[in-house]
């Protein structure tokens, strides 16, 4: 009974929620990144469990593509963090607000 679909979905949703909470609550840019990764994993889990449920290979392929995209994301994201940290000596995600062009609107 416990191995029915709902259990896997519940797990995935819990992980997803935790990831979301991490994005919302933490300022540490690394943790935000990791939370996003966690959310991606939760989604992967849903895909895979649905694949198992419908006995289809397609979701697994999608999950695999997501992992590949996560890898690409990791590369870009981490290099960005490196640049940012070099300049501002901070991991606070709020300093990214300097990227907005708010001044030109005033």
């Amino acid at each position, binding site marked *: 009974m416990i191995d029915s679909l709902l259990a896997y979905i519940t797990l995935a949703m819990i992980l997803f929620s935790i990831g979301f909470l991490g994005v919302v609550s933490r300022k540490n840019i690394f943790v935000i990144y990791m939370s996003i990764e966690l959310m991606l994993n939760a989604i992967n889990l849903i895909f895979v469990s649905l694949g198992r449920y419908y006995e289809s290979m397609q979701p697994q392929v999608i999950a695999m593509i997501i992992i590949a995209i996560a890898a690409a994301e990791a590369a870009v994201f981490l290099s960005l963090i490196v640049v940012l940290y070099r300049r501002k000596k901070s991991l606070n995600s709020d300093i990214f607000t300097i990227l*907005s062009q708010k001044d030109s609107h005033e």
Partner: protein
Amino acid sequence: MSNFLLAWIVLIPFISSFIIGVMYLYSIKVARVPNFVFSLFGLSAPLLSFLLGFSFFLQMIGNDEIFLYKAYRWLEIDGYDIDMGFMADKLSIFMVLFITFVGWLIHIYASGYMKDDKGYGKFFFYFNFFLASMLLLVLGHGPIIMFMGWEGVGFSSYLLISYYYEDGENVKAGNKAFIANRVGDFGFIVAMVTMFYYAGSNGFDFLNLKESLLSVPVPVLTFIGFSLFVGAIGKSAQIPLFVWLPDAMAGPTPVSALIHAATMVTAGVYMVARFHFLYDLIPHVGLFIAYVGAISALFAAIIATKQTDIKKILAYSTMSQLGYMFIAVGLGGYSVGIFHVFTHAFFKALLFMGAGAVIVALHHEQNIFKMGGMKKKTPLVYFTMLIATLAISGIPPFAGFFSKDEILLTAFSSGEYLLWIIGVFTAILTAYYMFRLLFVVFYGKNYKEDKKLHFLPKSMTTPLVILAIGSILAGFIGIPELLGGENLIGSWLGNWKNSSLHVTHSTEIILMVINIFAALLGIFIAYKKFYMYDMKEVPIFTGIVWNKFYIDEIYDTLIVHKIKQLSIFISYKIDVHFIDKIVMGLSRGFIRSGHYIAKMQNANTRFYAFTMLIGISVISTYLIMVLR
């Protein structure tokens, strides 16, 4: 029949004015066109029209034929046609004859008067246009066509009055004339529209209206008649829309002669006569018209007694004489009114041209108290002016006597004795102020300067002579039966309601004598006061009469000023501070709230995520509730 020639009576001056206008523009832009070319076109157009009119006149003798020419369908709406048509009956052809004839003489005079003016071509362009509009007014076969001429006359008078446009005052006078005329036009248009709805079903021309107006209820007819008369008031300068007439003297003198003698101001009288079938049905409005005329006549005569500007005196005298005409047409004596229009055309044109000659001779001096002794210097002008003055004062056998006598006879025989008394009193005043002018200008000794007089060309003096002959003879076409004559004009214009037949011959003689006596009384007073007038200085006048009863000022304060204030109130108060505030306030509200919303766009991604979270939460809650 050669009815299409009717259209050419109107078209010839139009075409000639167009040609002159184009040539004038050519002359100022490219190469100078000599003056005689302008005068060639300008003078031939009225003459040709006159000849055409005369040919129609000849065809009309002895029968009651009405010539009708429909040129084209002007417009067609809803299956209803309005034509561009021309109609000549005895009334209109009579008008055409003296309009073109007197107009022609004034044209000749103007060719001498305007000789040195730079805008010679322009002047004839306006002049021919004026004449053409007047002819259109007279020959139109229905109210709409008449109205076109009506407005055209108003506009060309504007052009001519503001002829010397560099001076703002002249243009202002032109504006005044145009706006006052437009007030009249408002009445005309209202009358026309009402007529169209109540009586236009069979066709909107005079012949059909004559029939269909019979079935219209009297209150509506009263309204129509009253509104039409508002139009006549504006055009013919009666109380209360006369203010433009004295100011209209801003134009060159031939313009005054044309406006006052042959065209424009007589249009109102003509219109009432043209709509005689309407006014016959509503005698109470006719009486009102007669009273307005009488009061205007008296009022203008009183003002004229105190004026110093030679042209303004004549202007007020025109207004006064128009008042006489309205007494006649108001009381149903249409032929009498038109008779006076006819005689008046001659002597008033003559008076203005004579005055113009004096003005030119004295190098554009218009104050009569700076003139004097002109009798010796310009004897020809003196004699012609004397004839005209005698005519306007009503001394037999000059033209004015017969027509004025008939008007007063009409008033008396209709039982309107008050009108008659006003008429007679005005006749005394008329004789007085006209002879005051004559004595001061031609006998007075005020003009001391020995400046050489300006030369008067032949073209200016010849028309004077012709008009003087006209002023003597014009009255003879309407000699009353009493004096053994035949009232040619009365019989020519048809068997209109004419109440003069109801008095006995003895009464008629008494009235005639009273009139002559009144004129002589006026002359006598003027002689006493002004013969051999000699005053060292130009007198300075004050008082309510000299200030024309402050009518201009009253209009300025009560109407013009108030409208200006209202205009400022609307455009600078309501629009800016009220309507604009509301609308732009709305937009400012949007902009302000936009600022607040923009504050949320603070580039803080966590904040965005949290907002998103709230959104997800709300939507999910909603969906849970909906999807059971």
